[in-house]
């Protein structure tokens, strides 16, 4: 037994070296508590509302905190339809023309220049703005009708086509951003510039957790998507919300969550003792400064400790029968692939994780689109459909919302040289397709329409903020009322816009 009992004493800064610090802390404490506390209170009472602004409000520093509490107490604003969300983010901008938005008239227009009457002077990216011609090109792949409503779906998505009766396909999405990073940031945070909280963080902040052993917001990035456009951790960041609401990325290697496991030769009991002691230290710190981030840090250490058991358990697919791997496709046995992540997502949803977000990169086909998109679809189609099927048969689609989509669509004209069997497509934010399935959305419908060129929306446009407002609505949140005050302003996911898309709600 080595001597390690000394640290069971109560921790005190009573070392002579700390005397000066102690004095300073005491003085600061005194000044904060008296001058700011009592002083401000008395002043506030003395001068009433004239000096302190119009609305009578307490002059103590936790005024914003109280207001946040009040906002949270009022939640949920509506009876929620969905309890969990899985968002399959197709990063890069999948072409709507080769997947869901069937435009047969283009076959006869192949090679013709995009009419100005259609383009209407809309801006193009720097990549194709200088092209001498903008030749239109139909889908290289055939479309067939599927499901009860005879929905047209591309031959690239045979598995998705089989579950079309569960999908609510929105063909009239539009965004404001024309480049990847601003467009993804816009989708995730409601603003093109980085710094605001991601959708999952807002949900965690607004609704809290349903499983105290796992994070509320979990992110899985496929390893088999072509990494042509980068993803940044800030896309699932908490922005200005308390940091416990940030998305936690699960990897596929030996350590699914980095830095979670104990170092070699260090066992769980040691860990527990260390954490309890650390938490005492943190509480001392917190009693002095009252910083909510200290609370967040304590909570995170405790969560990490619980995750040391819960994560290996949820990551293990050893108990899954062979039939499940067959459903999700051969990739599903290879951890870190999109298919394996879909299977993992189902397991996380079963554990009541509130928001699971998958990212699959590689949808940015500026050139060689026919071969590129075929490979992308092959890597994702079966597992996506399997996730729907699996959730449905387990009864989880009752209260789970599944979302599939990218950050924008692609142009009807070819970027680069158009040949009989090869072309590319540039970024197109004016219309693209997403789909949702499950809790609260109408199954088996298509919503919104684009023109014959899949260039402009002709019916029921759905803006990114509208999508976000609808998502929050399905979770029981009024997007106009979930706010967080930061730097003197109240922020929302939908900023100052967003309309709920009533047409897709059950």
């Amino acid at each position, binding site marked *: 037994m080595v001597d390690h009992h000394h640290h069971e004493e109560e921790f005190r800064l009573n070392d002579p070296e700390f005397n000066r610090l102690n004095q300073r802390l005491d003085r600061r404490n005194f000044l904060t508590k008296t001058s700011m506390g009592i002083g401000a209170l008395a002043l506030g009472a003395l001068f009433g509302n004239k000096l302190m602004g119009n609305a009578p409000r307490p002059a103590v520093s936790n005024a914003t905190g109280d207001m946040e509490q009040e906002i949270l107490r009022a939640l949920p604003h509506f009876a929620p339809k969905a309890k969990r969300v899985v968002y399959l983010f197709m990063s890069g901008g999948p072409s709507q023309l080769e997947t869901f938005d069937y435009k047969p008239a283009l076959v006869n227009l192949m090679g013709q220049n995009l009419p100005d009457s259609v383009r209407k002077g809309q801006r193009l990216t720097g990549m194709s703005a200088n092209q001498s011609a903008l030749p239109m090109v139909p889908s290289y792949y055939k479309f067939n009708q599927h499901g009860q409503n005879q929905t047209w779906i591309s031959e690239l998505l045979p598995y998705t086509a089989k579950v079309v009766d569960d999908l609510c396909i929105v063909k009239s999405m539009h965004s404001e951003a024309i480049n990847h990073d601003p467009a993804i940031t816009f989708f995730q945070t409601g603003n093109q510039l980085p710094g605001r909280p991601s959708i999952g963080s807002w949900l965690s902040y607004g609704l809290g957790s349903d499983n105290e052993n796992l994070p509320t917001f979990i992110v899985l990035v496929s390893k088999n998507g072509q990494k042509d456009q980068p993803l940044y951790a800030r896309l699932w960041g908490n922005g200005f919300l308390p940091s416990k609401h940030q998305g936690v990325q699960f990897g596929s290697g030996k350590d699914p969550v980095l830095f979670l496991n104990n170092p070699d030769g260090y066992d769980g009991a040691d860990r527990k003792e260390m954490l309890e002691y650390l938490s005492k230290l943190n509480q001392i710190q917190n009693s002095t400064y009252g910083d909510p981030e200290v609370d967040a840090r304590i909570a995170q250490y405790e969560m990490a400790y619980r995750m040391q058991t819960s994560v290996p358990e949820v990551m293990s697919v050893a108990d899954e029968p062979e039939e499940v791997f067959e459903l999700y496709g051969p990739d599903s046995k290879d951890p870190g692939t999109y298919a394996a992540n879909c299977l993992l997502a189902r397991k996380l949803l079963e554990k009541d994780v509130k928001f699971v977000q998958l990212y699959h990169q590689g949808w940015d086909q500026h050139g060689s689109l026919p071969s590129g998109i075929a490979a992308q679809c092959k890597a994702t189609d079966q597992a996506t459909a399997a996730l729907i099927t699996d959730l449905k048969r387990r*009864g989880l689609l009752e209260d789970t919302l599944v979302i599939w989509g990218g950050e924008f669509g692609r142009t009807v004209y070819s970027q680069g040289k158009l040949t009989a069997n090869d072309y590319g497509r540039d970024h197109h934010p004016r219309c693209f397709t997403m789909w949702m399935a499950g809790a609260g959305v109408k199954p088996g419908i298509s919503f919104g329409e684009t023109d014959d060129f899949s260039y402009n929306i002709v019916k029921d446009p759905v803006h990114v903020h509208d999508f976000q407002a609808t998502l929050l609505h399905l979770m029981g949140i009024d997007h106009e009322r979930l706010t967080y005050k930061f730097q003197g302003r109240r922020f929302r996911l939908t900023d100052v816009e967003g309309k*709920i898309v009533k047409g897709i709600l059950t």
Partner: protein
Amino acid sequence: MIVLDIFTFSGRLHPLIVHLPIGFILLATLFNVLSYLQKYRYLRQAVPLILFIGFMAAVLACVFGYVLSLSGDYDADTLSHHKFSGITLAIICGLLYFSSTSMFKEYLRVGDKLFSALLLGLVVLMSYSGHQGASLTHGNDYLTFRTLMQQEREKPATVEQAMLFEDVVQPILQKKCVQCHRDGKQKGELSLESLTALKKGGKSGQAVVSGKPDMSELFKRITLDEGHKDFMPADGKPPLTKNEVKLITWWIKEGKTEGGKTISEIKNTASLKPMVALYLGIGGATEPEDDAGEVAQMINPDLPLVVDTTHITSLRKKGVRVRMMLNKPVMLDITLPPKSGIKMADVKPEMLRLAKNIVWLNFSDNELTDQQLDFLPALTNLEKLRLDKNPVTDQLSDYLVSLKHIEAVNLNETKITDATTLKLKKNPSIQRVYSWKTKVDEVKVN
């Protein structure tokens, strides 16, 4: 501005200071009266000093009272009564003190009996002045003989029994308007304290015109844009809720601004009843009281509007997850964590207490048998039920047949057979039954 605020501040101290002279004058009178008894004779000597202190306090109270009166907002008549009686009181108090000094006594002697009588008179005057002051603060009807006689209206038990004006409209006006528009303090020369006063109207015209909300000043003012200068309640006081506005509108338009009628005596009240139910907090059809955004929801009208949260806390302590799905009416989503080891008997009492609030219920993977679930028929508002991965059998379906709102039942990986699906078909509200990995023939279910 700061000077003015210090005035306001000290003015508001008047109600505090004013009790000092009251105490001293009462004490002086008490001592004076007691001193007629041989035993307390010596108290007489203290009376002049107490009167002097009382006089000083009365002067101070008058000064603060005057400052307070400058802030306005008071009924002029009552105020002037209070002011003059208060000042008179201070002067008389001072004179009485003066009359007991040796200097005064050289000129004129006031007899003992007369002095006592004057002191008692002072107490009467003080009571009058005090009453006027209290009426200013609390309203003219705060302490009247009518208050003694009046009976509190009991809260009606059903919507039908409620009286439209007395139980609904009047309480709204009482809560949101009467603070400024009352008999004593008639802002805009309008009082909303009684139906008669209400019908008289105010400076801007008729408050209510039977059947014509557009011509009723009351309706106009409460429906203006909140930023409008004529919007009521003014000065940022809490506005009427949407439901309250609707109720008043209905009363003017359809209710013909009448009083004394119960809802059951009025015709065509289909649209009125849910509003009244919501306002009175009696169950029944409801809609979110606040501005709930753009989408109206269909919500089961049988759901209770309230819940006893002690049962929720108790369940949570036992490890059961209780999620609030909606605050009004109260919808609960209850989950037993998988393999929780929680005994059903331990949580059953709370479940039964919360029975009508439970909308979603998840008992998945908890080794539950049919008998342990015998309380399910009490959960009359249940919409979604998950019992997957439990050893339940066909007997369970008996508990589900009577549930009127149940939409989806998850019986995956249980011991059910086709008998369950057949029985559940008898309940028309059930739309989806999950029976994956059971003996149920899947083709037949579809």
